[in-house]
């Protein structure tokens, strides 16, 4: 195990994003998110195709918690287990250990990012502040993995930490309501009436400002450790229970991130373009809101330039489950999004203009899928699209 003491980490804020010399930033590669299987890394390896060399690790499914953190007093809570590691005195040693364990469990594969689902970051109670601790621990681990990755020939240039843009729900409360009965001996009875606290939709801007503030310690850790090579990719989750759930929310979020250039930690907070969510699950927003389309993104460069990573799968008319690519939508419906990702990936990063670098990967997402056939189909389809596109780009004069 290799410890990673503070002195190997530069605490200065980078002026520009570092690009490792070995990396080819122009080329996009398919990766597979490990949440396709839920019974530990060996199950993941049994599900993903042999050809898939890049893994985006989902942190963490329950069986993984028991495997990687067997002494955790919270074996059923990824948030608390990861936060405990971050808040311990030897956090960096634990991060190095976690990194070494992950690399060992996924032999001959390269871990290129972490996927998470911790919307608790926007909840009101004190424990929610621990979600930033959990994310900080993942940043520490990312730093260790990057260091290991750099030893190989084809080291990926970046590491992405994908995170959900927060929940709008704020807790549950109740009051008793008196209900009359027909029994004269019991004139009324009390029935609990439950209510759900919710961040006001009309105060979206201030809620998004709060989300960005809560991400500050995570982003600062990422800058400190990764010197611009660890990026945060905020995920749009569809539906009324999530804060970042529409084109309008993305617009406000990116405006907030661009708003103060004296806060360099905002430079590494970007967006994860989840094709399944963006293309197929945000159409329902009221007509007065902009539709999230490739054209809209081209017209809103402050959003486009913050895209640092992408996920892909097909979706139905709701978040019923991740479907294999083209299960419901045709290739022509994916094409504009693929072209957009390729254009974005070929952009040169420029901090001054808030243009963030792109990870170089598109993660295939098949959470708790039924069959390895679905993952294999999506992998082959995406690999073919990327290789066809690369061939066409080469053929151009």
């Amino acid at each position: 195990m290799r410890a990673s003491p503070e002195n190997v980490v530069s605490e200065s804020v980078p002026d520009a994003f570092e690009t490792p010399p070995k990396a080819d930033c122009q080329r996009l590669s398919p990766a597979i998110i490990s949440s396709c299987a839920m019974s530990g890394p060996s199950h993941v390896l049994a599900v993903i195709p042999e050809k898939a060399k890049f893994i985006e690790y989902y942190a963490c499914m329950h069986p993984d918690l028991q495997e990687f953190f067997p002494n955790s007093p919270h074996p059923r809570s990824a948030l608390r287990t990861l936060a405990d590691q971050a808040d311990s005195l030897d956090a960096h040693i634990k991060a190095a250990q976690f990194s070494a364990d992950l690399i060992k469990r996924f032999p001959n594969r390269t871990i290129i990012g972490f996927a998470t689902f911790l919307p608790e970051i926007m909840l009101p109670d004190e424990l929610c502040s621990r979600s930033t601790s959990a994310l900080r621990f993942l940043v520490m681990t990312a730093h260790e993995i990057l260091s290991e990755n750099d030893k190989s020939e084809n080291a990926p240039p970046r590491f992405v930490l994908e995170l959900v843009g927060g929940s709008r729900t704020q807790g549950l409360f109740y009051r008793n309501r008196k209900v009359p009965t027909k029994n004269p001996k019991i004139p009324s009875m009390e029935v609990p009436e439950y209510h759900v606290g919710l961040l006001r939709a009309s105060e979206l801007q201030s809620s998004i400002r709060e989300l960005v503030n809560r991400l500050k310690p995570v982003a600062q850790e990422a800058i400190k450790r990764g010197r611009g090579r660890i990026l945060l990719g905020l995920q749009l989750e569809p539906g009324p229970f999530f804060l970042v759930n529409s084109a309008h929310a993305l617009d406000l979020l990116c405006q907030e991130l661009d708003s103060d250039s004296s806060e360099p930690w905002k430079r590494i907070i970007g967006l994860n373009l989840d094709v399944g969510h963006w293309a197929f699950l945000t159409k329902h927003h009221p007509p007065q809101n902009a539709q999230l389309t490739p054209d809209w993104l081209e017209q809103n460069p402050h959003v486009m330039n913050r895209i640092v990573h992408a996920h892909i799968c097909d979706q139905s008319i709701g978040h019923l489950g991740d479907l294999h690519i083209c299960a419901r939508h045709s290739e022509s419906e994916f094409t504009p999004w693929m072209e957009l990702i390729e254009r974005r990936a070929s952009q040169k990063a420029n901090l001054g203009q808030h243009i963030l670098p792109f990870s170089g990967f598109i993660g295939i997402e098949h959470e708790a899928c039924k069959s390895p056939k679905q993952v294999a189909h999506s992998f082959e389809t995406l690999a073919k699209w990327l290789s066809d596109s690369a061939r066409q780009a080469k053929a151009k004069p």
Partner: protein
Amino acid sequence: MSTLSFTDLPTGAETELGHKAKAEIQRFLWHLARGAGGDTWDDTAIPDYDIGLRYAPSVILRGELQVCGVSAPRFALRFELNDKRGFVNLRRLKLLEDVLFDRYPDGSFPFPSGVVEPEFKKVPINLLNIANDDSIADSILSAPSRYPKRAFHHVTAKLANDFGEACPGEENYEGTPYVRTPVFGVGLCAQACCFVSTLLHPTSASHVCGLGEITALLADPNTHEFEIAGLSQEQILQYFESVNLHATWQLVKQNPYQPLNAAHHFEECLHAYVASNIPVILCLDINRLPRINMSPSFLEQPEELAHHAVTVIGCSRWLHLWPANSEGGHYSRSESVFLFHDSSSMPFSEATAGQLAGAGMRTVQEHPNYPHLIPVTPAEVKMPLLNWKRREEESDQGGLIEASVHAFDKHCRLQLRNREFLLAQLKSLPRLRLLPFFTGDNTQPVSDRLDELVEGARHNLHWDQDGNHWVWFEVGMPRTGSWLTVIKMWDAEAEPALLSDDEHGPREILCSMLAKDPDGSWRWHWNH
């Protein structure tokens, strides 16, 4: 005592299920598999079951978790029914309860800022008794074999693919969605009906979400909270508008001098929609329905009004019109049977038209009151069959059944008892041959004539050349006159408000009529 055993179970998964999950699954499977009849539970009749479970996504669990403020367990445990008859997602309730106690060490959910105490209180996790709640979440089911397709129409959609059940190259099988609403859940019966009805329109609905999200979508954007409560009928209409579907609140108009007409109209309307693959939400008093599948909570207070909503998703194929003698021309009639999903008890519950008709909301002293119907159609279908309204305070407007009475001349009025409506898109014409009017020698001529009718509509009225236009077919026997059989075709996309403009009947609505003379020749007529 029967047993339920699991195969291919992920490690530790069995301990994640709720305390009563096994018994619940056994009863559920028995209900789906049992033969016809059997009005009461018989635990000794439940056979042994052996099912395989795997983790799978669930849109229902995602929403429930967000309300609880935790991020796990957002995957369900899923088992598949034999022969691609569907799948069932199970909530991992014991795990959820454990996660909540771990998440909130003081044993209560967080209390949002801005909420006023002491009127409102913290919710102790124990109060919700989560581990003992209903486990069955989003599921897709085929109708039990006791309701065979040759005798019943089931409202279905091809949904296996949408839930990730169809692998590449595999068939996308069809079924009917179902969900149970737990006590701790974030949506009640009306939301469950909305969820089921939306999923039954996978190509028309703009989106579908979990039960709690349906409630939240209807909340005021300026409020900082919403109540977990049922939906009013107006809210149900509002919800369907937001997902690009059309729902109309329809009522049976009661005439004290012709009480039987109201019963016929109720049955006719319900059958017309369901036989056309359109789900119908019924707002009723569940205590007035047969008790076969009643949940214990309802049985405890049989005298109380129990506001409830169910989704009608099946019906006997015909309105039971049979020739009473060998010459034909006279028909006797028995009641239709309907199948409905009850989110508080069982899918594919069964009731006759009369049983449903008697389940309207009313107190003991009040006159019979029919349940309100909310058929859920694609957005283009505007023309309701019964009287309709949008808001409680509005007076109701006439629907197509009323319009049909006034249309044409008296010779074309169809006999109330020998008439059927059927909704269809021109590109997928109804299988009229299944109707008792068109059997044997009549089948082919009718099909040919319908094709002519459709072509004429496209040409003369510039309807969608792709055949996407929706029409109502009205088929039956005239009350008087020289024709034996009449088929009328109505524009189902016409706005019903037009009906009230003309006391003599609709002017703007197309009505084409195909009629058969006693001499056997077919003639058709236009009126628009």
